[in-house]
């Protein structure tokens, strides 16, 4: 690993000032992704600004019922919090289905949002990758791409975003708070991650000196009846081939509200707006669930090895909604 300077920030103002002054610095949270990338030579910052001593570790309910989660809350602490377990079960499940117990104890919420793709060509410095080296090409297109994107990809990059947590946050309509020397701003989580287009190396809507300080989850009664379902090659401790975060409300056999997002299919957590549109006020039947899934996946595009994902996504959406419909109506 290339040597670097280390700076332990003790307050937020110092942290964002230090980043503004050092374009090649990186913020260091739990380190579970960044340290690995540095060891592989994919990331080579000249300075690490350790932010783990900043007071961004609260999980607070606000008067409007929303929950504000500090960016330095560890993944396991968020999954274990009573508010999350009761009001947003799909979020607790999503976190618990990611990584391992040890990694969840280290990884922060802000870091989870900003983790880099696990595309194996991105990690392999002997192959071209437009994310790692803009303009060099994409070895995944036509290569080993069974893990890769079926939605929103481009001819320059077909990598997926690896987070489970983000998929649930996308379904929940979360907002991200960021801070820099220019002040505080908020953006929808759905606007944080960018699709690759012709600039796959630009992965988020953040300015280089901005620090994520919190995630706000709005109050949503529908979310109490929610689930996260993840399909992967191993039963545990593997990235998603396809995942579904869903919340569903059914009254008299009719869908009155639905939240749906997909993981493992695109460069960002994929809010299934088309499927939600089809489902709202539709009959809560398997046929309607399938029609909604088809509407969402109409634009899906397979690579040489990942065509199975389209049918897998369809079936996983239907299965998750079927289960929520059954559970929601027995309560």
């Amino acid at each position, binding site marked *: *690993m*290339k*040597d*670097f*300077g*280390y700076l*332990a920030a003790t307050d937020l103002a110092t942290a964002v000032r230090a980043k503004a002054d050092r374009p090649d610095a990186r913020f*260091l949270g739990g*380190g*579970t992704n960044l*340290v*690995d990338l*540095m*060891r*592989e030579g994919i990331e080579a910052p000249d300075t*690490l600004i*350790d932010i*783990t001593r900043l007071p961004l570790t609260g999980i607070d309910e606000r008067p409007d019922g929303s929950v504000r989660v500090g960016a330095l809350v560890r993944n*396991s602490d968020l*999954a*274990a919090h009573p508010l999350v*377990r*009761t009001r947003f*079960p799909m979020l*607790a*499940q999503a976190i*618990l*289905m990611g*990584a*391992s*117990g*040890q*990694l969840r*104890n*280290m990884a922060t919420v802000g870091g989870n949002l900003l983790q880099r793709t696990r595309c194996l060509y991105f990690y392999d410095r002997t192959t071209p990758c437009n994310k790692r080296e803009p303009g060099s090409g994409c070895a995944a297109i036509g290569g080993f791409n069974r893990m890769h994107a079926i939605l929103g990809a481009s001819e320059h990059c077909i990598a997926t975003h690896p987070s489970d947590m983000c998929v649930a946050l996308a379904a929940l309509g979360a907002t991200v708070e960021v801070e820099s020397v220019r002040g505080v701003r908020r953006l929808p989580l759905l606007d944080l991650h960018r699709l690759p287009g012709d600039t796959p190396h630009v992965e988020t809507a953040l300015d280089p000196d901005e620090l994520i300080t919190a995630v706000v989850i709005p109050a949503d009664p529908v979310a109490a009846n929610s689930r996260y379902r993840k399909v992967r090659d191993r*039963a*545990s*401790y593997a990235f998603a081939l396809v995942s579904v975060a869903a919340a569903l409300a059914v009254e008299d056999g009719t869908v009155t509200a639905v939240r749906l997002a997909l993981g493992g299919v695109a460069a960002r957590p994929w809010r299934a707006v088309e499927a939600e549109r089809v489902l709202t006020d539709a009959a809560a039947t398997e046929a309607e669930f399938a029609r909604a899934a088809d509407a969402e996946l109409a634009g899906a595009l397979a690579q040489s090895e990942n065509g199975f994902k389209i049918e897998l996504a369809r079936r996983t959406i239907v299965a998750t909604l079927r289960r929520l419909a059954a559970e929601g109506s027995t309560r």
Partner: protein
Amino acid sequence: MAEVRMKVNGATTSVELEPRVSLLDALREHLGLTGTKKGCDQGACGACTVLVDGRRIVSCLALAVQYEGREITTIEGVEHPLRAAFVRHDGFQCGYCTSGQICSAVGMLAEHKEGTASAVTERVDAAPELTEAEIRERMSGNLCRCGAYNGIVGAISEVAAG
């Protein structure tokens, strides 16, 4: 170079380290505590698991400078019935993953005692029983290439049952 003070297995220690030194290398190469093993060095195998303030982490992805002032427990400092239980249940063959398995299990049992759910918990709003399926899921961050999983799960089940 930075001076990093930590409490390791109850004793206050101080080491001069470059910021890029992992907690794992600090323990093994600088403090001579070779019980903690380096497997993959990328957070995938769990061989390097230690406890920080009682919580399990993988020490290979931890930069030692970040752990200034913290309390680290390695296998050398674990006094726990799990150690004898692993022997009784043949919870290992080559033994390379064992210190990580035991440190991880100590942390895992504490997490379960706090009522946490896991990926296989049917309803995440309830505290689950520590079934075999729960143990296997919660220990999935520790790989054993010899495949001693049945013994590992047996040892943990016995200790969990008291």
